[in-house]
């Protein structure tokens, strides 16, 4: 993965990280190294 696409990968990871058995409903990830892909 190129350096320029890591933030897009992070978004995809967030999309995948869910389960039906807890109640954490929202999140905000503050990041450093936020390159636009």
């Amino acid at each position, binding site marked *: 993965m190129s350096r320029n696409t890591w933030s897009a990968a*992070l978004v995809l990871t967030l999309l995948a990280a869910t389960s039906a058995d807890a*109640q*954490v409903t929202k999140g*905000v*990830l503050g990041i*450093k190294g936020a390159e636009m892909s």
Partner: protein
Amino acid sequence: MRDTIARQSDVDKNSIKYDVAPGTERYRHGTIAFAATKGKSIDLEKLQKSLKATRLGKGTRSGVNYLEITAEGDVAVVKKDMILKVSGTNQEYKLVDDPKAKPKEGTNTPYQRLRAALDKGVTIANVTGRVQAWNGVWPKVLRELEKENEAKEPTPRLLVVTEFETVSK
């Protein structure tokens, strides 16, 4: 690829908001806000494992400033500590005050307001806070989170309270 995974996921893909500070330098600050679809939830351990599997697991100077979550559950006072028990799970967070908080005179921190609400018997609907250990360069953060998950006797993770909502009657 993004669209493909989004279609396969139960997450509300429309909730994702990506903001980055203006500029051209490589290591800029940004935020990614996201929300689960109704009835679903964000699994932090799964999130951490997925991140480790990417190039963020090693060899990068990029990092995380914070992970702020909103969790629904019961808040109980246990031996002077406020513990958030996340609904439907064994997950527990020990709620703490921001050690760097400097509230204006006559005002209280979110943690102090939450404590006062509990003392009055108010029911808490959800708590928003920043999760302990999600701060630093990605490889180091992910390594430390993994160690914590593998601990034989895990202790409740700290959650620095930034906001909360009460149940309206």
